[in-house]
């Protein structure tokens, strides 16, 4: 499995060889392939493009989308943008946090759930909004929290 990913990634690097300003794109594609940015991959990128590891690490820690730790299987991202906040998404994320036992930005000990507070994803007409592995749920309430967790705990 990992050999396939490594091969895929090697092809990505090759395709970016002559592109100006390629480091961030390489990191974005690496995260698409590996799910996060292991140190080994960061070193590989630094090496390939001839920049210090500190530069790659500096980019990884600047942008909120880059993950340096392996994420859980189920990523719950609750939108805390203005429209959602004004309609109570803060209470929704607090409830997830209480039930799952993790703070936002962390993964449960069994590796199943990652809870994140996300920036506005632009579905403000459906506020409050959250996504589970990218799938959008609109008009969520505190009761929806139980429904959603039940759905994924059964899967």
């Amino acid at each position, binding site marked *: 499995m990992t050999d396939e990913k490594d091969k895929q990634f090697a092809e990505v690097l090759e395709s970016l060889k002559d592109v100006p300003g390629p480091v961030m794109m390489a990191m974005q594609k690496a995260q698409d392939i590996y799910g996060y940015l292991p140190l080994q991959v960061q070193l590989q990128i630094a090496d390939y493009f001839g920049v210090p590891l500190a530069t790659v690490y500096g980019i990884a820690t600047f942008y909120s989308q880059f993950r340096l730790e392996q994420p859980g299987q189920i990523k719950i991202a609750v939108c805390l943008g*203005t*429209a959602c906040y*004004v309609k109570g998404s803060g209470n929704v994320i607090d409830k997830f946090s209480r039930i799952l036992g993790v703070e936002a930005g962390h993964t449960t000990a069994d590796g199943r759930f990652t809870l994140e507070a996300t920036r*506005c994803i*632009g*579905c403000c*007409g459906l506020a409050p909004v959250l996504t589970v592995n990218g799938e959008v749920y609109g008009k969520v309430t*505190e009761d929806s929290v139980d429904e959603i967790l039940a759905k994924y705990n059964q899967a």
Partner: protein
Amino acid sequence: MKTIQQLHEIRESLAAKIAERKEGAATAGLPNRYVLVCGGTGCTSGNSKIIHDNLVSELKERGLDKEVQVIMTGCFGLCSKGPIAVVYPDGAFYTHVKPEDVKEIVEQHIVGGTPVERLLHAEKDIHGQLKSINDTDFYRSQRRVVLRNCGVIDPENIDEYLATDGYAAYEKAVTTMTPQQVIDEVKKSGLRGRGGAGFSTGMKWQFTHDAQGAVKYVACNADEGDPGAFMDRSLLEGDPHAVIEAMMIAGYAVGAEHGVIYVRAEYPIAVHRLEVAIAQAREYGILGDNIMGLGHKFDLELRLGAGAFVCGEETALLNSAEGKRGEPRQRPPFPAIKGLFGKPTLINNVETYGNIAQIILNGADWFASVGTEKSKGTKVFALGGKLENVGLVEIPMGTPLRTIVEDIGGGCPNGKKFKAAQTGGPSGGCIPASLIDTPIDYDNLMAIGSMMGSGGLIVMDEDNCMVDIAKFFLEFTVDESCGKCTPCRIGNKRLLEMLDKVTKGEATLEDLDKMEELCYYIKDNSLCGLGQTAPNPVLSTLRYFRDEYEAHCNGKCPAGVCKALVSFKVEKDKCIGCTLCARNCPVGAISATEEKASNGRPVHAIDPKKCIKCGVCISKCPKGAISK
């Protein structure tokens, strides 16, 4: 590759069909029937894709798939009533459609000829007749220029864009106008940057045109980061070619052959639509080395953001597009002189570009005939928060806020009182009820302490605490601060700490004055727009809601929001001892007391030491016996 002649032919053959969709009613002699399904992100989350697929299969089963076309379009704007589907030629506007409703729609309406009444957008006129969608409160005051094709065409089909005069503006510009004439037209229109700052677009084009250098870039800022704003997303998802065409015209005007669209990663559907549009344009020879055989070169690439609000600031965006940390640069030099990879770069917002083709086709005077003296044209707003009709609207500049909130937005739901409208996102300010008749334009909003911003307009009602709102925005900007300059990195953080003290009831009146002073210091000394505008929500709420701040200094939160200043209590004479509250309390803070209610069951009480003020008890109590 298609020749100009071929492009004209495609345009002519489809023009009548698309025009019919815009009119919202049948045109004589056209038997074409079709269903438009909204494919914006909001409706997609409501399974509009499944609705689309169900329609296709139901029609196929009845052998109607050749006669009735099903098209996935961009955002209609009435997001709170989604998923939306419109059946033509009747113009029946269906709302809250579920995949299970498709069978009924096909059988009863498309085959049987009778619309499904329970799903129709239910506004009736004085005669009790269902109104045409263009006459409903939501759409009547709108003037859809930038959004003209959203909800009308299939954004993944370049032929449909061509049919609505797509790429005709580019053809007109390069065959009948010089680059300077194009720039003059944009200047004359009075178009100002729609990203928020409102700088004269024509002047920006002039500066980039005049800059020295053989290689220049045209960039599009699609990093729509303001929470609550989704104007750009809707345009990119619903009519991506409009942006592409505008960038091509810009390239011709300023002398650039390369374009870069920087899109935030949180918009995967928009990214996909752009990729499809760019590929189709290249296939038709509209992007490439010899556009339409007219001899000019232009091509585009996409670069994605990775979740940093500051990258919406133009110089931070350029750094990020170059693959680095998105930290802003000193200006001067401005991007027009030294931008992407050090080359002169024109950088404009998505919505700004959304106006260009129409200005070239219809003329600057046409554009300037709408709006106010210094703010011409229309503006797209994303209405959100405590409103009946949340969604996307486009209105002439100068429309009073009251029209937006009450007529188009339908007012605050549940009988609550309007308290404030916030414009400009985390950089903007609040407009209180006393100023609800303010005509919306760049200068009026600046004068009352807010700003146009990108177009997010969030409505708050009596249950929102303005101090809490200011703190919410500041938490956001502090988190998103890139950290490069001291006034923002440290100043805004200190400001947030002071606000926090206020929400905890630990601040004094003197602290409020210190906060205000700090705000002005940060505004005057920060490197970029993020730092310079982060104090705006604080200043604006201090200006119009000072009494609320002072109440907090006296230990009260009038709206009942700030947890430290609110205590939850069971009203003894209303409690019926049903124990719903106690059973649902996540921390077991509610228990029975010795007292009995009139039905003999024990009255319950909340232990203030355990209570975390989550509010679950209030939502569960059947008697409204718990208050803050």
